[in-house]
């Protein structure tokens, strides 16, 4: 089904009113149902859209909750991404900040303006050649280096040989694919793939669900479109920890809850692995009210944080409050972007809960 056909199938039942941005903003034009109706009229040539409407369309973290609840199973995640692409193709997008991030990434190969030569600054071990690559991603390389270090330590402790691409690691392109900017996404795909082929990479480990989704789901698709081969296995660190890790239990009994990153959960269906690891660590585990398929997004993804900070933090705070309601001391997640955004949101609420990445805790407790 193309997006016009998908839009025409929408029954307008409104079940997707659970959308976190709609719940904040409250206007039909921001609800998935409303956006679909706008898209349908626009694609059928019945309406003209203006800058405000385009903004409303982009008020979405592409978290996929709408797809989960849609009774007629419309493939809405793909729909939003394609719609954003159509907006870009027709000159209505990218929005200002998304465009700026693209320009930065064209220059630096990451959206944080980080010096590409210092991408592996966090590495405190000797890099050896291997067919397995740890792809740290931009956030862990430039913003949350402790996560990159913890992941590498964990892999070392588990006896997994791996290499690092260093200055040959480029942004996976996820932020751009999600915001309709396929041009730069394809360039980043090509650069990464070229290097991986040269280095004989057969397996990629990521600690970032955004990279994980993009490299395992979007790269093969784009490769096929371009008539290229893509035979690389992609795994997220947490599934390695679950499969191979034996852990000591935490010294002091602590209570923790888990936030499902949208790119790991709804987009990739990985719900149990992180929970199993948390339990193995001896953490008293409590679920939040909305979990797994129905988990509330952290509010950062899909370009929402970069372009619409207020909405994004409103959602982030809602999620932190939900975590606090469980009485947990730790809000554990498995995504550097969620960790970053939720900890900033927790800060706004007085830091009453500690936001941590699962890999960082688990790494310290791996049994020798």
């Amino acid at each position, binding site marked *: 089904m193309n997006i016009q056909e998908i839009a025409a199938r929408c029954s307008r039942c409104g079940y997707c009113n659970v959308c976190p941005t709609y719940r904040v903003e409250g206007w039909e034009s921001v609800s998935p149902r409303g956006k679909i109706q*706008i898209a349908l009229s626009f694609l059928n040539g019945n309406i003209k859209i203006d800058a405000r409407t385009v903004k409303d369309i982009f008020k979405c973290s592409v978290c996929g909750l709408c797809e989960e609840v849609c*009774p007629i199973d419309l493939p809405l995640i793909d729909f939003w991404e394609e719609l954003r692409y159509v907006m870009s193709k027709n000159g209505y997008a990218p929005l200002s900040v998304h465009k700026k991030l693209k320009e930065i990434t064209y220059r630096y190969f990451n959206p944080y303006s980080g010096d590409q030569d210092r991408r592996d600054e966090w590495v405190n071990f000797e890099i050896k050649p291997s067919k397995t690559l740890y792809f740290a991603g931009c956030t862990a390389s430039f913003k949350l280096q402790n996560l990159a270090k913890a992941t590498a330590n964990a892999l070392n402790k588990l006896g997994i040989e791996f290499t690092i691409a260093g200055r040959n690691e480029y942004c996976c392109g996820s932020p751009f694919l999600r915001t309709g900017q396929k041009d730069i996404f394809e360039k980043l795909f090509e650069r990464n793939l070229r290097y991986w082929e040269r280095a004989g990479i057969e397996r990629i480990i990521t600690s970032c669900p955004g990279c994980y989704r993009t490299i395992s789901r979007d790269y093969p698709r784009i490769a096929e479109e371009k008539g290229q081969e893509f035979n690389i296995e992609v795994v997220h660190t947490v599934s390695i920890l679950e499969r191979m890790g034996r852990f000591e239990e935490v010294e002091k009994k602590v209570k923790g809850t888990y936030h499902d990153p949208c790119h790991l959960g709804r987009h990739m269906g990985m719900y149990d692995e992180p929970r199993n690891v948390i339990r193995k660590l001896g953490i008293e585990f409590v679920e939040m009210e909305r979990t797994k398929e129905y988990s509330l997004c952290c509010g950062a993804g899909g370009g929402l944080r970069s372009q619409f900070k207020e909405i994004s933090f409103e959602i982030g705070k809602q999620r932190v409050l939900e975590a606090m309601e469980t009485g947990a001391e730790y809000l554990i997640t498995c995504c550097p972007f969620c960790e970053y955004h939720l900890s900033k949101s927790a800060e706004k609420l007085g830091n009453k809960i500690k936001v941590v990445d699962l890999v960082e805790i688990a790494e310290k407790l791996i049994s020798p």
Partner: protein
Amino acid sequence: MDSFKMELSRSVKRYDFHPIQRMLYSQDLIRISPFLKRFIKYPVCIVQPESDEEVLATLEISRRFKIPVVPRGAATSAYGGATTLKNCMVIDFSRMNSFEIKNGCAVAESGVVWLDLEKELNKAGYALRVYPTSAPASTVGGWIAQGGYGVGSLRYGDIGKNVEWIEVADFDGVKRVKGNELKYYVGLFGTTGLILRACLKLRENREPSNYAVKCSFKESLNLIEGAYHASYMNRSLSKMVGCGDAESLLLSFEDQKSDLDFDVELGNKIWKRRFYLLKAAKNANIIFTEAVLPYETVSEFYQKVGNLAIKAIFTQDCVVMLGILPERGYYSTALKVVKFIKMAEKHGGRAYATGMLFPHKKILDEDIRDYKKAVDPENLLNPGKAMQSNAISKLIRLAEMIP
């Protein structure tokens, strides 16, 4: 227009005049064909009140500028009640969405979504007696204004029987309505007043025990006694919604039953999917048709329409029959909708509700028109609905004449 805008901006916080927003708020669940779209008028603006004061202020503006209002919940009613037929203001109640539990009842504002309410009540040990199967989206005010039956109606009856009182706003202010007076508001599609909040009767929260029984429709009528909720799907609907490939009766009891030898697994599956009738639309667009039948004649009616995908909802005093039609040609499907209701009428039944589509049906009490005139002399409350004809309902009347 400028003074209207100025007045509005002084009186309410959330309003929107944007053309795309107006387009979106001009429609609800029913699909309107391109030809019929000429009868739809985009609203002038949308107002999202957050308090009674803002609702009253909007009504005052409506009166002063003679601009009608169309109330709106989640726009899931299939009778076009929230569709806009005139230059009007849409009053979207979704921002009035708080509630509290008081003396064993829930006092919920109009915009509260049924399922959100149910989840919160469950935490406090309570549960709704009845709710519509659109509960994930639809609102308290919207369902009361449409009127009807839902989950729990076998034991507890329609929504009207399960409200203690409602508070409504009209041009004279806010009033509390209860008892027999409720008939002037329940099922009136917001044509006599705007529902601000409702006091809902509750029950103790007990996990229902669910059973599925493979049986004929006629047999199902002998099995429903004692259940709090019961519904029946024929074979083609069971298949369409992914609940097996046989006709099945769902029986839900408020107490755990140990003496019933029915299919628990399938029963739980159908119960879990009670909100997901639209799964039937997975492979093709569908149109619903509905009618209310007396128990005495419903089997005979079923025999006549059983070739369609059918769901029956058993209630205290009648059976709601829902036909699901694949949309093969807009007008030919619409004719089938009309035929279904005509067939029900032949069997002593009636249309389920009025709204924009069936204001000519004699569902409402005779004195309701007088009541409307008294409370809304200038016809500003959702005109062209419930008891007033409109261009679309006139075409439906013509279609009804086709043998």
